[in-house]
């Protein structure tokens, strides 16, 4: 068990450390000024300084990402259930989803902010929900369609009701696919919550902090917040993995 963990954790950590050292050396030896690329040590120093603000921004952005993720995922799963039942809904949703998949956040954010108001957190959450919707919907629908013919026959032989079929066969069978979608969605949720902050709303999140620092050429500070964003992404990704492990019955 421990050696397996080691095998999965060690290489990426090692690579990360090597990359950090290379980065530091590049900055020092290449005499690169901080306004271009700050050194990891400078970022670390800033990280210490901004930690309290980083924490509150982390929470604000994290809350938006989380709420949007949950809302978008719930919507996607219920729509997928509907689409798996009614082929008309499915055919109607397919082009809409294809379109949603390519709407740039930067185009949508200003419009949504105007629609909901600049002091509301809702537009950011709506953006996260929209971005999350696509992978969750597509994967869930694929999962719901994976019902083995033999299981279908079995349930028919048992004269099971539609609801019984969903509960005992379709939904449990689709779970791994739902989680594939959620894994993708988790890091998308974070990055879209951050980008959504560039264009309006309260200045309380990581996105605002990053832009503000970057515009002031305070790149070590900006990267300290970027680091926060990466951590937030890791937290979300790890959380969906953990939930998947807990929900799917056995630990591999």
């Amino acid at each position, binding site marked *: 068990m421990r050696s397996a963990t080691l095998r999965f954790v060690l290489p990426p950590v090692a690579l990360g450390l090597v990359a950090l050292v290379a980065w530091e050396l590049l900055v020092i030896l290449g005499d690169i*000024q*901080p*306004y*271009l690329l700050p050194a990891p040590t400078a970022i670390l120093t800033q990280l210490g300084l*901004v930690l309290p*603000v980083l924490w509150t921004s982390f929470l604000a952005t994290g809350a938006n990402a989380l709420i949007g993720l949950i809302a978008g995922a719930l919507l996607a799963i219920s729509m997928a259930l509907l689409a798996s039942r009614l082929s008309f809904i499915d055919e109607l949703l397919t082009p809409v989803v294809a379109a949603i998949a390519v709407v740039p956040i930067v185009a949508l954010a*200003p419009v949504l*902010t*105007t629609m909901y*108001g*600049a*002091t*509301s957190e809702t537009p950011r959450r709506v953006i996260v929900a929209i971005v999350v919707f696509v992978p969750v919907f597509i994967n869930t629908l694929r999962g719901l369609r994976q019902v083995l013919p033999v299981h279908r026959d079995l349930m028919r032989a048992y004269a099971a009701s539609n609801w019984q079929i969903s509960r005992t066969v379709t939904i449990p069978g689709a779970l791994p696919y739902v989680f594939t979608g959620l894994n993708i969605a988790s890091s998308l949720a974070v990055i879209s919550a951050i980008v959504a*902050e*560039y*264009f*309006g*709303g*309260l*200045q309380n999140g990581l996105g*605002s*902090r990053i*832009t*503000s620092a*970057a*515009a*002031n*050429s*305070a*790149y070590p*500070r900006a990267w300290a917040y970027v680091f926060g964003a990466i951590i937030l992404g890791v937290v979300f990704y790890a959380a969906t993995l953990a939930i998947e492990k807990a929900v799917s019955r056995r630990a591999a």
Partner: protein
Amino acid sequence: TTDETPEAGGGDGGLTPVTLQLQWFAQAQFSGYYAALDQGYFEDEGLDVEIVEGGVDIVPQTVLADQQADFAIAWVPKALASIEQGAGITDIGQIFQRSGTLQVSFADAGIDTAADLEGKNVGNWGFGNEFELFAGITEAGLDPTTDVTLVQQQFDMAALLAGDIDAAQAMTYNEYAQVLETINPDTGELYQPEDFTVIDWNDEGTAMLQDAIWANAERLESDEEYQETAVAFLKAVIKGFVYARDFPEETAEIVVGAGSQLGSSHQLWQTNEVNKLVWPSPDGIGVINEDAWEQTVSVAKTAKNLEGSTVITTDPPENAYTNEYIELALAELTEEGIDVTGESFEPIEVTLNEGGK
């Protein structure tokens, strides 16, 4: 691109290539540069100028320090911040003598001074444009982190009009015009200036210097040719702004022709407002006023944003600005009989159309 090839200016049509990095898209904020280009003033000075437009994340002063432009237009506080982060640049021409930043609110909101912002939703752009506001709030005895709610403002003024924010940040030449280009649903006509009150940071004493021409400090020190180019460049630019002062309508059309998506009436308004920030210029256009510079540095060192950080922590280096080149340019232009102070400047009356069309 840098101008590495040692090529003499003027002469047999061998023009010196020069790249100018702007801080935003083509608009009349940069009227003088576009006018100079259009009127051939740069060529007259032996320069082949390419104007590079900005973007949300383009920081002109670092592009300049990075030697990817020969000159850049940037606000002074933002440039000071970059200098502290290692960017070697020098302010060689302070085109805007005044700050154009306002805090606009509806007349009935009762926000007439910075002190009135207490407890309000206050819009600001971030992007480093917020320090005059913070300094003003601080000056009024308020704490920007707790006494006001700061709201990220978009590129439009919808948040103010919808009532989401009580006071919006606005440039006299841009966002303020945007509200005046909008139909007031109560009257069915465009909003009128009387519908709003504005806080002008020039009056509050926290104004900071804005659009300036920046040059690469290192090259300025060692490269004689670059020094000459700088003077030539300043001369052409000044002539451009003089043209914009004297022919605002034509200038607005030049800017629209440069690819602005905003319409003629908006650009005419903008030209006119920018003229007000430039003219009159009693010391001569572009000369850096030491008091204004000191006020900018002082605010930059003391005003805290909502993270508690200031623009800069130490005084800027000696070479952060110099009047050496602008004075050379002014001297030559005065000799040519050009009015470089605009003492008699009178703004025109501009009628805005709906949507700035």
